[in-house]
Structure formats: C-alpha cells, structure tokens
C-alpha cells in the first residue's frame, strides 16, 4: 500500500540531520533569528511593504527573513503555511490573520513546538498568539475616515462602504465603529450600503460600478482597504462621477498618487505598513530572546521606532493614523 511507503520513508529518515539550510530552532541570543512573515495573501502591495519593513528590521538585528503566503485570502488557506513553519522549526511567525479563529489550532500547534507567534494588521483570538501589533486604534481609524468623508461631501448625503472580505476581522470592527460615529455626530449622512470586494481589484471595481447604478444619489464611497479604494478611485476617475462622488478610506500613497494629483481623491489615511512590519519583527525578536513574554507592561526596543510598551491583551500600538493629501503625498514612497 502507498501509505506503507510513506511510513517507511519517515521511519528511516529521522537521522538525516545534516540539512545546513534548516533554521536553528530555539536560537536564543545568537543574533540569527529565523522569522517567517505570513501575510493574508501574497501579491498585495500593502503586505509587500510591511514585509519589506520586517526584512529591514531582521537585517538590522541579524537573522533569516522568510515570506510565505497563500495566493487567495481565504480563512483556511494559511493553515498549511503555519504547519510548514512549524515543521521548519522557525523561531517566530509573524501573521496577518484572514480569520480570527480558523488558524488558531494551527498556531497552537506551532507554539507547542516553540514557535513564537506575533500577529499584525489583523488579529486572531488573543489566546492563539503571543503578541498583536496593532496598526492604529480602531476608534482612531474609524473616526479619521468618517471625518474625511464628512468633510469631502459637506456633512450631508448618501455614502456607501466598500470593504474587503465579509469576514475580515479588522474591516468589520472599523465598519461597526464608523456606523456608530456617523449615527452619533453626522445625522445628515446616510450609510446606504456595505459591499464587499474581497480585496480583489476587479471585484472591487465591479462593486463600485454597481453601487453607483443602484444609488444614483450617492455622494461618497469609503473603502477601508487599500485594494478597494484604488479600484473605486479608478472607476470614479473614468466615469461621469469624477468630482461628484468623493472616494476616501485607507490607501497607500503610491497607489493613490495619480488620483490625488488629478483631484479624483482629496484625502485618504493610513499608517506606515513598513513601520508595522518593522515593529512586528522587533517584537518577535524580543519574544524569541525572552526579554518579553507578551505580558502587559513589558517594554522592548524597536530600532529606529524607539521603545514600545505592551498594552492590555498582549497588544502593541504602532500609533495614530496619518492623513495623506495633495500637500504631503510627494513625501512618501510606499
């Protein structure tokens, strides 16, 4: 039987420990940290930037940077990559979770073979990881987006939200807070719909087109995802709605540059994903070294970003969101 072959293969293969390429498990303090970054999916410029920040940090403190990930951001697609990292015995895994629960068991297994787990950008359930690097407080992110859209449409009219996947942890938390913020402070703004573009350019583009057909009175679109805002801006730029319908949300300067320059987009916000990846890598290093455990009040050094303190629930806050507009966008390149 084939299964017998697999067993035989494994039974006599456990002595082949001459693989020089294997990361050194449990390397403490020898300045050779093996850290694997696992974004929601590969090929997303946002994660390319955060991974570059992680690579920069790992180059600073001496270690092996590895970047792996699925091609599509589905809940269980990250499981096999977590398993692979556990098999390789890496020191730490830095993950942006597609789903707060679906990868928990896989992360638990990785941690049981002494892999430190840091989540960033999108968290898992707190018990499944050692630390979460939070890009910004959800309240701050929601508030800045509501303020931007309110300012751009003059404080009244219909708006819609173009989100990523329907079960993306961070997206849903922000949308909920935006709804609260709108209800509390902007009675004349009506949120007519929340649509999902699955962080796919074409899907987001089509959803934008459908929104404008369904709601001819629409004054603004808020997209709290970098893929969505760029697709929405591209649709508006080439349609008769340019200048009539505001597009804002969370985007990256390089993606949004042309839309800001031609006036399709007035302002948008984000944090610096490179800093986020950089901070996550330093947090992973501190965990591997054992200088922190992820308990509240632990402090660690994060290179050029200075010193950080672990808050409640093993969370480290990067800082406040940053608003990009025509005046400052030229200063950024990511």
């Amino acid at each position: 039987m084939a299964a017998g072959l697999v067993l035989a293969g494994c039974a006599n293969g456990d002595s082949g420990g001459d693989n020089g390429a294997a990361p050194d498990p449990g390397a403490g303090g020898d300045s050779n940290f093996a850290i694997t970054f696992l974004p929601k999916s590969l090929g997303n410029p946002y994660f390319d930037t955060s991974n570059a920040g992680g690579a920069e940090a790992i180059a600073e403190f001496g270690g092996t940077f590895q970047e792996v990930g699925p091609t599509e951001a589905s809940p269980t697609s990250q499981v096999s990559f977590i398993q692979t990292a556990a098999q390789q015995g890496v020191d730490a895994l830095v993950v942006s979770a597609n789903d707060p629960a679906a990868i928990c068991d896989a992360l638990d297994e990785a941690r049981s073979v002494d892999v430190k787990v840091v989540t960033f950008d999108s968290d898992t359930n707190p018990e499944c990881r050692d630390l979460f690097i939070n890009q910004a407080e959800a309240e701050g992110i929601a508030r800045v987006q509501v303020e931007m859209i309110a300012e751009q449409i003059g404080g009244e009219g219909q708006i819609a939200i173009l989100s990523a996947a329907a079960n993306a942890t961070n997206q849903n938390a922000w949308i909920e807070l935006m709804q609260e913020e709108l209800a509390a402070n902007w009675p004349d703004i009506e949120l007519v719909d929340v649509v999902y573009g699955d962080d796919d350019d074409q899907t987001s583009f089509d959803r934008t087109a459908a929104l404008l057909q369904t709601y001819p009175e629409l004054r603004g679109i808020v997209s709290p995802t970098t893929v969505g805002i760029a697709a929405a801006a591209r649709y508006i730029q080439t349609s008769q709605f340019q200048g009539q319908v505001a597009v804002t949300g969370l985007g990256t300067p390089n993606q949004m540059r042309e839309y800001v320059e031609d006036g399709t987009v007035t302002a948008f916000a984000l944090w610096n994903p490179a800093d986020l990846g950089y901070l996550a890598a330093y947090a992973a290093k501190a965990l591997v070294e054992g200088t922190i455990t992820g308990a509240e009040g632990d402090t660690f050094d994060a290179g050029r970003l200075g010193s950080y303190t672990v808050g409640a629930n093993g969370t480290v806050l990067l800082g406040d969101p940053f608003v990009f507009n025509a005046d400052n966008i030229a200063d950024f390149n990511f």
Partner: protein
Amino acid sequence: MVPHGRPLWRRAVLTREGAVIGMLAVVIVVALTTVPNFDSPLTITFLLRDVAPILLIALPMTLIIITEEIDLSVASVVALSSVTVGILTRDGAPFELAMVAGVLVGAVAGTINGFLVTVVGLPSLAVTIGSLAMFRGISVGLLGTQAVTDFPEEWTSLARSNIPGTPIPSIMIAFVILAIIFGVVLHATPFGRSLYAIGLNKEAAHFSGVNVGRTKFILFVASGTVSGFAGVYFTLLYGNARGENATGMELAVIAAVLLGGVSIFGGRGALHGVIAGVLLIGTIGSALRLAGVTADIINVITGVVLVLSVVSASFLAWFHRARATARARGEKQG
C-alpha cells in the same frame, strides 16, 4: 495467453497504478534526501490530516467515475455539512446530534443528485454542476458572513489527534476502514464488476441484467454521505464552520482520481492507484512548501504532473496496443 517476456517489476510499473505508486515512492525519497525538515514527524501528521477529506471523498468518486459519471458537488456538500454542524452547535443542539445531522445532510444531498441522474435521467455533469452551485449557495446563505468557531474541545482535539505512539492522524483509522469497504466492493463483488461493465458499455450492462439506475443511485448517495462525513471532519479539524469551506476541493479530488489511473471515460481504474494519486499530490505540495516554493508555482507543478500523467497514460495505451499488434503479427508468421 502469451507468456510475457518481461520481468514482473516492469509489468507492474507499466500499469497506471504501478506508475503512480512508483512516482509517489520517488517523490518521498527525493523529498527526504533534499528537502530540509521533510523527515520531521510533523510532516506526515500535517500531510495526512490535510489530505484526509480528499482521500475520503476520492473513494466514492472513484466508483462514480468508473461508471462514466461524475459528482462535482462534493465540496459544496462538505460545506453544507459543515454549516449544518455549525448552526446546530450554535443553537445549542447536542454535538453528537449535530455531527450525525452533518452526515445525514450529505446523504440527502447525494440522494437529490442520484434522483436527478438516475430517475429523471439527466447527465451527471450537468446535474452536479447545478447542485455544486445550489448547495454552495445554500451553505453561504445559511450562515451569511458569519462563522461558527466554538466547538466542543474534546471533539476538535480528537479530530487533530494522532494514533497514540505514532505520527499518524486518527482520522486515518476511519479512512482505512472505508477504503477496505470500498476496495472490497469494487474489486471483489459482482456489484463492483458491474460498475466496470456500466462504464465500458451501459447498454450491454443493462442487457446482461445489471440494474444501471439503481447502481448509480447507490453511488451518488454514498458520495454525498462520505462528503457529509468529510464535512464534519473538516469542521472539527479547522475549528470553523462557514459557507465558503472546502471551495474548489471537488477539483482536487477529481484530479487525484484521474492521476491515480481512473479513466474519465469510465470502465477503468483501481482504488490503490487513486489513494497513491491523492498522496502524490499532497506530498508534492508538502515538500515544495517546505522547500520554500510559492503557492502559485506549486499549482503549476501539480498541474504539469496531472497533464503529464494523462499524456503518459495515452502513450502507455498506444505502447501496449503496438506490442499486441506486433505479437499478433509474429504469431501469424510463426
């Protein structure tokens, strides 16, 4: 009977099943000697655990394809079963009942397929493309954008447990039992022989007393039931029930079945080849992931292996025909 002039090993390798098992052995040996950490016991645990749903569903799928039918709805049935387990658990039903319901929902789904194919007399390709969409739609509709992730710890840890003292996942016990049942039915009973007869020539099988409709009906119910069971396992393994679960798995199953030497035109195939086919695809994926190959390249390589296997099958058939013709000529001259 002309005596074969070739040694036994060459005859064995020259069958499709032999070739696939041989390839599996080669891939395992190459991976053990060249891929770091492939010899970790975690490798076999993760590999078998992840391919278990595909292994399970491949059993009835083999029988269905041998009769020249197909069931494309299996992955949607997995999702339907998963969502059933999730909703019942969320609403407080006893978990044992929820699991039984998941399997039963699969059986009902298979009954619907079987009814449409055999009683109404529609082609299974059309029927199961339709039910693929229908069952997936129902699954996503039932849970919407939510996921149920709270399952009894004793059951989720059982799904992830190994046979004590080995790196083999416990689910393999269920698989081996089912594989023996399906193997005996297919290769050692009149019912099994009738499947080949149906696949080779439906009318001839009918006139020699085979109840074609009833036979196929049984197969579709079996396919649905096993998919329902795989859905329960999938739910426990990943600790989540959602409508999108197992999307695309039907193609993984069918690809493995065809790789294992079952003819898409019916009438040919054996279960051990199929099992080797599933393990071959799983092992290639596992080894390449460990070697740091990206997901899209893994898809390309898997695709190339499948195409080559189909091409080589045609070549082998031609080779055997050519030899037979040559032998026949030789006998005439003798």
